[in-house]
């Protein structure tokens, strides 16, 4: 049916050898394709982390559709309501009134009042000059026992400040009020899955005798509110950094950004910084480092020269991961990333030297529609991440998003084990990657 002028395999503009690639944006932006890998969380999944909360989206029908069905698929429609925006609302001055009245009606109809209500507006409200402050103020007056959180689904503004994902992670903690600090408690902020107990980060916090709090572990609204008292905020995902900064500014807490890394020196620096903040001596990590290296060697022994492909949804540091694997002899052949983050610049330079022929491949480029499963199937590939699994057509993949809760030397050790597991076991890629929000319940 489709005929391309430049031939079946011409991927010019959609992929480039790392030696020739620009940083941080190796590709020209244009029309975008959406690959069917649904594991990364969206703002609905993230918002649902607040226990006993309810979400109300005020948006156009097209925008509502995606968020409502996200909630439906995670079996959470009892926590999701909506107000649709009509063309007339944009011009007749009723935008604010409709949201206030609609939200009030929804709350009155709920079988139980929520402890918090996340009210989302969208791009069109911001373009139309909607007065969100008035809306929130009126609702807070009407329902003083509910914490109202202003939230935003505004992808049109994704390049004009914080992305919707960053904003969501920041607003996730908006109800936290200034209060006396509990020096015995530490928060991990902005994650959507728990950090492994075996990670050095968690072990250090435990060794310091501190209680570790994380929204992913909160079962009640009181658990969640207790996080406001913690004296130290830790973030390690780039998308969570703004959350930690906001809490530092608003609550006067110390914020440590200890980025998830695959560089052993950076890992050690992060852990030393954490130990310092916890007031304990930094342990000797030689053994942990050796364990991680041994695990990589074991994975390499199993995987051999099978190509490894990595995508940006698996980890916020895909370049760093590629560099680590290349340093340890893996044949990393392809990295899927449309842009890279500034933090990855040193790793990018390292990767250029280590594997100059490695291909950087876009995921949204229009040509990628025809580079997916069934067209460019390459068979024997170990993929790290769902998009890499999709584009390579492999059944052997590590099914993680956003780092998968793995951190530090232990994170490297675990990831190597996951790669070994992926090499020896097949998964039903089509079924697995189409489920939304990896780790959430799913009706599919």
């Amino acid at each position, binding site marked *: 049916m*489709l005929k391309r002028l*430049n031939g079946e395999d011409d991927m010019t503009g959609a992929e480039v050898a790392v030696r020739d690639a620009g940083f941080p944006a190796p590709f020209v932006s244009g029309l*975008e394709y959406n690959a069917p890998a649904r594991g990364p969380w969206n703002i609905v999944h993230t918002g649902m982390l607040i226990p006993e909360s309810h979400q109300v989206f005020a948006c156009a*029908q*097209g925008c509502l559709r995606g968020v409502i*069905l996200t909630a439906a698929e995670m079996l959470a429609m009892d926590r999701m309501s909506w107000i649709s925006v009509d063309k007339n609302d944009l011009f007749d001055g009723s935008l604010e009134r409709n949201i206030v009245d609609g939200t009030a009606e929804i709350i009155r109809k*709920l079988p139980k009042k929520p402890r918090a209500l996340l009210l989302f507006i969208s791009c069109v409200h911001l373009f139309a000059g909607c007065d969100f402050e008035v809306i929130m103020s009126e609702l807070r007056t009407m329902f003083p026992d509910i914490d109202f959180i202003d939230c935003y*689904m505004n992808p049109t503004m994704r390049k004009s400040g914080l992305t919707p994902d960053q904003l969501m992670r920041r607003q996730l903690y908006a109800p936290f009020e200034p209060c006396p600090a509990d020096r015995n408690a530490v928060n991990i902020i902005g994650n959507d899955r728990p950090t492994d107990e075996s990670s050095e980060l968690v072990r250090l916090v435990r060794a310091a005798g501190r209680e570790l709090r994380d929204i992913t572990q909160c079962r009640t609204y009181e658990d969640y509110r207790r996080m406001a008292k913690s004296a130290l905020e830790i973030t390690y995902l780039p998308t969570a950094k703004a959350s930690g900064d906001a809490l530092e500014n608003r609550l006067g807490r110390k914020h440590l950004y200890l980025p998830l890394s695959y560089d052993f020196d950076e890992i050690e620096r992060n852990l030393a910084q954490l130990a310092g903040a916890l007031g304990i001596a930094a342990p000797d990590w030689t053994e942990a480092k050796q364990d991680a290296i041994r695990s990589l060697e074991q994975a390499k022994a199993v995987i051999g020269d099978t190509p490894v492909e990595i995508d940006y949804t698996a980890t916020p540091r895909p370049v760093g991961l590629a560099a680590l694997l290349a340093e340890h002899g893996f044949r990393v052949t392809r990295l899927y990333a449309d842009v890279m983050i500034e933090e990855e610049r040193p790793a990018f330079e390292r990767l250029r030297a280590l594997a100059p022929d490695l291909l950087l491949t876009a995921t949204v480029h*229009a040509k990628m529609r*025809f580079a997916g499963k069934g067209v460019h199937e390459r068979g024997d590939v170990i993929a790290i991440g769902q998009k890499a699994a999709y584009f390579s057509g492999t059944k052997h993949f590590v099914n993680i998003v956003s780092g998968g809760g793995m951190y530090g030397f232990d994170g490297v050790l675990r990831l190597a084990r996951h790669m070994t597991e992926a090499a020896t076991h097949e998964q039903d890629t089509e079924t697995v990657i189409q489920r939304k929000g990896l780790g959430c319940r799913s009706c599919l």
Partner: protein
Amino acid sequence: MKQTARIISIHAADTSGVCSMLYELGGMVVVHDASGCNSTYSTHDEPRWYRQDSMIYISALTETDAILGNDEKLIGDVVSAAKDLSPRFIALCGAPVPLLAGTDFRAIAAEIESRTGIPAFGLHTSGMNSYLAGAAEALEAAVSRFCTDALPRTNAPSANIIGATPLDFSIDGTVESMIGWLKKKAGFDLVSCMAMGSALDDIRRASAAHVNLVVSSCGIAAAELLKKRFGTPWVAGVPVGTSFPEKLASALKAAAKTGECALPCAERDASSHGKRLVIPGEMVFSGSLAAAIESDLGAPCRALCPLEADDRLLAPGDIRIFDEAAAEEAFAAASGVIADPMYAPVCPPNVPFHRLPHEAFSGRCFRKESLNLIDRSLPWRF
């Protein structure tokens, strides 16, 4: 309150309707939006996405480009992609922000066509109407552009099926069953099925058909155009159950003979007092199912219309329901409800609820439960 829902879903939007209708025709569809429309469409509204290639893209609109009216970015990106991929045509449609910015899609399409030589058309979506509006406009535009030649009618009786998308008929074999029924039971060869299973070149030959079968209200605009342009009559209905397909076949034969259009799906009367089964959904399907249940099972029915629909599709006594509260009220007064499972939370516990997934409402949530009701006994007893 209008436009508000506590717990039910919302129907797919007009942009998804455009993409769904044009998916298999070899064209490039570009939704002018930031990012959400394409993800929503490809995740929830398009079951063909994983296995069947199609050139559906998003423009990745940014705040700056929207405010500054940088249409050249959109035009340049579309022209560049079209040169790479050689689509048969290019369709452009927009989400809410382009609506606010007053983006002129027809002018942009004309510019793209002049630069590429590829037929291009602009559509008037806003992300604020249902899939039916988008699918209707997209199909009408495609028919208008490509069904221009008045071909001689085929020797044997023949028909087009108009208005088929997975949003109404999933991918459970229902469309294939309709095509089989049309050939084997109704006695019409298929010229084209708009737009599942047929290529653009099949649709180009639509004028050779003796009659058109409209299976969703999104097909009416295109059917009206074919009537105006070639005199081809259309008949609205879906051959569900056992006796309604016979009625529909007779209507097709009569229309082919007389040239008069007919709406067997609305040839009912739900205006008398007493409780009825209610069936919310797209009106050609819901009306056909209501007729089928009344004749096959003897249970009085009423179609409920939560979507845009031509008044001709509503039988006396059918009700338009604009929001969740109206649905709740209609369900409470019914003897039973046949509806998508996502309506169940607003059905009172004492009213029997019969699940009938509709992809345009619940997406892929209940695809495994979808029912092919074409030309066969209905699965319910009342």
